[in-house]
């Protein structure tokens, strides 16, 4: 489905919320769960696109670089900052590493590089809403921890506040 000007919905959005992570890897599925929560329980405000970007956010960000310029992008993901597990907080983009492992590659390039490029190259307001991860796993199918589950509605509400 394309919108009337011929771009994919996320590339044509004015305000965008991207839930990032792997739902098969326990707490890493937090971002997609937040996107689903907004969709199923809170509703998406007019002018906003909420997307479960899963593990493919790089493709979405690439489209944002090339296509129509959204006003603001909110990235929802987990992070380990040594805070209490389940705490939801905003991370300034500049606190992410500026080191560039390969600058721009669809093969191995870190997403953080693309976020800087969206902000500095295209003037997009990039916001990062993070949740302190409770634990990590490498076992496929591991469920999300209860601590993180409890944080889903908190992050969903916070993400919507960032696009109002």
């Amino acid at each position, binding site marked *: 489905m394309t919108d009337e000007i011929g771009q994919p919905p996320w590339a044509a959005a004015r305000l965008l919320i991207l839930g990032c992570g792997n739902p098969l890897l326990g707490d890493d599925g937090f971002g997609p769960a937040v996107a689903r929560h907004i969709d199923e329980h809170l509703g998406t405000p007019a002018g906003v696109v909420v997307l479960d970007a899963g593990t493919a956010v790089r493709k979405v960000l690439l489209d944002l670089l090339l296509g129509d310029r959204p006003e603001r992008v909110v990235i929802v993901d987990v992070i380990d900052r040594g805070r209490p597990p389940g705490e939801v907080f905003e991370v300034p983009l500049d606190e992410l590493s500026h080191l560039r492992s390969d600058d721009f590659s669809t093969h191995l390039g870190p997403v953080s590089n693309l976020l800087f490029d969206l902000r*500095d190259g295209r003037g997009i307001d990039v916001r990062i809403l993070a949740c302190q991860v409770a634990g990590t796993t490498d076992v496929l199918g591991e469920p999300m921890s209860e601590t993180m589950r409890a944080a889903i509605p908190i992050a969903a509400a916070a993400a919507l506040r960032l696009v109002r």
Partner: protein
Amino acid sequence: MAKTITIAPVSRLEGHAKVTINLDDAGNVKDTYVNVVELRGFEKFCIGRPVEELPRIVTSICGVCPWSHHLASAKANDAVFGVKPPPAGEKLRRLCNAAAYCEEHILHFYVLAGADFVMGPDADPAVRNVLGIIGANPEVGRRVVRNRYLAARILNIVSGKSIHPVTAVPGGFSKPLTEAERVAALALGTEVLEFAKWTMAWAKENVFPKYLDVVKMLGVITTGFLGTVDANGALNLYDGKLRLMKPDGTFVDLDAANYVDYIGEKVLPWTYLKFPYAKSWGEGFSIDVDSPKGIYRTNTLARINVADKMATPLAQKEFEEFRQAFGRPTQLTLLYNWARLIELLYNAEHLVELLNDPEITSKDIRVPVTLRAARGVGCVEAPRGTLIHDYETDAQGLITNVNLIVGTTHNNGPINMSVNQAARALIKDGKYDQGILNRVEMAIRAYDPCLSCATHRLDGKLAVKIDIRGADGELVGVLAN
């Protein structure tokens, strides 16, 4: 004084790859190395897995071309189980391959390699990137986004998802295409075909002619080539005979299952990436630019060189024009980009052709399989070159051995040679500047390698740097973008 120049991505992860250029006492290039310093390990951790799981596991080898690994693995499964998919099952696989190719080739031309040509190799690094392209041609960016989306949508329609695919299964395909889905996908495919036609015309008018002088000198080496052709000698990206061509244009056609009789693999101590070479030529292995031995190339230019013709009319017309202009085989490395657009056109035509095939909606898409101990080789042409999956299983169908040769691996030797050629042409008497950095990168990027060194700056910030070290190892200078 002898110096070492290192072109290295600034690494916060594994480092991935770097280029080392050693200069002699006179300041001329002594030798060069493209070091790949990452290790994935799929060939090890797949051991013990049920073979039918591999088509779903190997998609994680590469997030850019998961379909190529998915299909090569499914074909290796077919071989392990000793089955052949029904015609419609095979056509659905081909259809997905063509759509994935369209998405991928559009990406590479416009985003990865395009900036070198659209903005020019001497443009300021701050604009010699995809953002520069958008700034100069805003409508092009929008069209790129839309058409990559359309190709991904076709994959969604046909297989349920465009990335991490699961629908190619041992013995065929798991989901038939309905008539309504066929009609919807055909509308999208027709638009992608129009974009492919427009891209070729635009590039031939605005991009390629401006830089033919660079094309004729940068990264030019003499090698053989490897690609896949059908029974009529036409390029085929899903199935057929492997054609191994010597630098003089003579060739042999071989069954992919017998690749070990023709291709050897050399390991060198300064890189994790293996060096496949044509052991059937009986000349050994050497990546000496002046006297290469056993070196062949894969990827777009190789496929166009080995093919006698194209199977679709518009691509055939472009193929004839290309061959008339550059001969067979052509060794001009930067022509990989031109060849890539011929393939884009072919894939878009093939996509539409398959969606107009009445058999594509048949429900006979899969044959049953029975576990057995066996070896199976699956081979497809991935965007970056010939992709070989070689599996062995025990009687329970559990993997006992895996060998993967991916497209970029075939090109390891040639990439090293092209970098050496570019560096020798550009660095004389110890004189070098910022311009050599991008030109050396261009020589690598033409191969579209699945390495981090294939990357391209977006904003002109520090992306790669050259460390200049004296013979004693002391850092005497830094060049950086």
